């Protein structure tokens, strides 16, 4: 994975996240929501599992399979506290435990963010990228992460793109992870005139 490719992936992630966070903004419209700042980073595989404040910290993870012209996976993760805040902002309810409606709200939010990300990329590249019905897990960060990496068949030297967004006024943190298959990533790169390898 050379530097140019990394930069390109970073740029894609930035654009995608920009759209995803705009969507988030719109969903929380009229509520205490202001600026959202995406921040793209590359993480080596081994470090990927331990970055949300510890492996044992509880997070909410949404995971989808991407099909169409581009195959791969995507995930959206929130620390539990952020997830609770999001549920409160989306449903108007503040319960100690996350109930079925709360889970449903998170799943829908994750679905919209991931799909907005892919819609943006699709428009830029003319490649169809369809997300599946999402899976949702609320569990220890380490467990969720490794399940995502294993499910996406990520191994070896593949790098994980992570973009972080946060909102001022409300402590909301989220991470979008884009994991295209190697070949399909090259497909996207080619649409931008970038050479393979």
């Amino acid at each position, binding site marked *: 994975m050379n530097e140019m490719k990394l930069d390109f992936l970073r740029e894609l992630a930035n654009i995608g996240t920009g759209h995803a966070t705009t969507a988030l903004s*719109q969903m929380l419209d009229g509520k205490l929501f202001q600026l959202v700042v995406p921040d793209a980073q590359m993480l080596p595989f081994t470090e990927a599992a331990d970055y949300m404040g510890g492996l044992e910290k509880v997070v909410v993870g949404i995971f989808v399979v991407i099909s169409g012209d581009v195959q791969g996976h995507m995930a959206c993760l929130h620390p539990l506290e952020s997830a609770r805040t999001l549920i409160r902002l989306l449903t108007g309810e503040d319960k100690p435990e996350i109930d*079925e*409606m709360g889970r*449903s709200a998170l799943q829908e939010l994750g679905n919209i963010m991931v799909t907005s990300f892919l*819609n943006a990329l*699709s*428009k830029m590249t003319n490649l*169809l990228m369809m997300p599946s*019905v999402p899976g949702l897990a609320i569990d220890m960060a380490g467990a969720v992460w490794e399940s995502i990496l294993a499910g996406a068949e990520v191994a070896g030297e593949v790098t994980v793109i992570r973009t972080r967004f946060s909102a001022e006024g409300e402590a909301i943190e989220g991470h979008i992870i884009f994991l295209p298959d190697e070949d399909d990533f090259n497909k996207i790169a080619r649409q931008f005139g970038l050479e393979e390898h």
Partner: protein
Amino acid sequence: MAKTVLITDDTAFMRMTLRNVIEKNGYEVVGEAANGEEAITLYQELKPDLVTMDITMPKVDGITAIKEIMKIDPQAKIIVCSAMGQKPMVIEALSAGAKDFLVKPFDAERVVESLRKIGS
């Protein structure tokens, strides 16, 4: 008499959100479907004036459901409400017979506007 609407979406949260918007604006939600299969069954049972349809759903997806409902009732008025806004998908949905395509997240006004326009 209020126009009747069948809501189709795989998440309870979105069904609840849509129901609130639709009912506040003078329509009657007569049913909720959690996937395309339920939408087809409920359409036949309830014969709603309007249908909102998600695309990405388990069991039977929205495009298939649109096609099946249009077969049952070529006059069916289906409005797609989906996060999936990529052009080929929009074209496919409209070709299958949907009358409008709203990309999530949409605001209440947009939904009502579509219901009024398509419902008349």
